[in-house]
């Protein structure tokens, strides 16, 4: 195991985040805070409770998920796209690092950053709304799993993308809608037939539901199902990454 190699990639990525702390940390925390103010405090005060939870508190887990999913995709995809774009990828390809080591370095760094942002938002939310966390260990587990799974997904997008437009395409056109429709702002039990069934095909629903369950003990789907779905999603991404490195797809000629 080339531990020095993993550390080099990981620290390289973390340094890049530190250099761009305004865009990469301050911006998502600020924009999520706006949601808390508008939906939580301003509008939320006129909305009844959802499943017995004040609306402002109800949206906290979903909003954190929405942000960490977007951030994981953006960071991980950009992290591997940039060396491709700049041509500096030659060094990675000629280095004695395995596929696993490369993924640990890039995806690990992106996931670390997303977890940090998630924690920052959680702390910031406290200023605006009152929430409780029933199962803190599960909260941490869902957060780390989601960040890792979507960083993996982002890594795939970064390797697939051959332009900055394509880099933005999937996060904007697919993931943001899925995240919004995944029960971030509502419980799917509030949806009319057949949309409550359709919603079950949305993978983000399971993440939001499981994460919210760890806060308040209420969920749209069973927490075990949520956990299983998160793992399935991660395994699919891992399989794709393994295939990419075996074939050299979009990396080697």
């Amino acid at each position, binding site marked *: 195991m*080339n531990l*020095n*190699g993993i*550390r*080099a*990639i990981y*620290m*390289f990525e973390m*340094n*890049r985040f530190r*250099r761009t702390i305004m865009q990469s940390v301050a911006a998502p925390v600020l924009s999520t805070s706006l949601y808390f103010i508008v939906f939580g405090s301003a509008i939320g005060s006129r909305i009844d409770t959802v499943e017995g939870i004040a609306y402002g508190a109800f949206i906290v887990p979903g909003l954190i998920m929405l942000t960490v999913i977007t951030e994981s995709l953006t960071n991980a995809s950009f992290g591997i796209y940039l*060396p491709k774009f*700049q*041509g*500096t990828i*030659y*060094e*990675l*390809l*000629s*280095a*004695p*690092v*395995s596929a696993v080591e490369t993924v640990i370095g890039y995806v690990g760094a992106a996931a670390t950053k997303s977890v940090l942002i998630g924690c920052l938002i959680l702390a910031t939310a406290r200023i605006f709304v009152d929430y409780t966390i029933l199962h803190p260990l599960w909260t941490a587990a869902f957060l780390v799993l989601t960040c890792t799974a979507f960083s993996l997904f982002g890594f795939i997008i970064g390797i697939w993308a051959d332009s900055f437009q394509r880099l933005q395409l999937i996060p904007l056109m697919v993931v943001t809608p899925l995240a919004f429709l995944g029960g971030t702002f509502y419980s799917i039990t509030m949806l009319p037939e057949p949309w409550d069934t359709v919603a079950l095909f949305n993978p983000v629903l399971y993440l939001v539901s499981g994460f919210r369950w760890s806060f308040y003990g209420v969920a749209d789907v069973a927490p075990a199902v949520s956990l299983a779905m998160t793992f399935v999603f991660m395994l699919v991404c891992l399989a794709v990454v393994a295939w990419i490195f075996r074939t*050299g797809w979009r990396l*080697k*000629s």
Partner: protein
Amino acid sequence: MRPAAHAHPAPPPFGADDAVIRVEGLEKTYASGFTALRNVDLAIRRGEIFALLGENGAGKSTLIGAICGLVRPSAGRILVDGHDAVADYRVARTKIGLVPQELHVDSFERVMDTVAFSRGLFGKPRDAAFVEGVLRDLSLWDKRDAKIIALSGGMKRRLLIAKALAHEPDILFLDEPTAGVDVELRRDMWRMVHRLRERGVTIILTTHYIEEAEEMADRVGVIHKGEILLVEEKTALMRKLGRRELVLHLREPIAAIPEAVARPALSLDGEGRTLTYVFDSQSEDTGIADLLRRLAEAGIEVRDLATSESSLEEIFVSLVKGRPS
């Protein structure tokens, strides 16, 4: 039609231990169907400077890419110090440093950080003193805290060399190291390559500047349309293929070469004022003495004379010219 497998002269025999890189039957056909390498056999000796000559698109970069891990070979195998470049890539790649042709850099990184990154990536523990040494060697120490974007082109080129040397490789690949580099920097680069060789680093460079190969290389390989045409000691190559020319400037112009002096290798030009004689510098009798004597007998006075030998460039052109496409 496929060329015969060993149409080119075999590399001079030397023991397996002397070959730091051994390429056997290497083929590369890209997804587009373009065949960049055809049955390439090549052995690089430990500690030599090897120049790979070829025109643009001849397969130089593909060959380097295959050895370094950027290109997936279609067939054949590559041994780096006895280690298979695919199966045993960790050991093989640790021994190699690669300086790419293009100036691929992370614009917003600091000089020192990017060199330390390269060292770590290749599995070496941190060593600030070593990184400092590399930067000083390449006159980049003063720029250690600078952002790469602020460096000049020549500095970026040196930085790429520093990155390639950061993990103490035994073998250094320089892909067109002086493309678009000014004369002074080119001389600096040549001096640096010689210093590295003195330390025992094997250097393989590609170039289409013949002057560069002539200046630096111990051995020269010529690649053309994906095939190695020849591999030869530079001096032997120049001896073997080099023609010498004797140019005689005459005091008085002559209308024609007198019968007694005439010979096939002798021509008259410059409005009857210069005689050019082509001879083989290796032969026992160059014919120069006889030529001069007969000129004197014919009463033709020579004002000045000069000899020149053909450069590697002329050799290269004559090799590549007339090859079937």
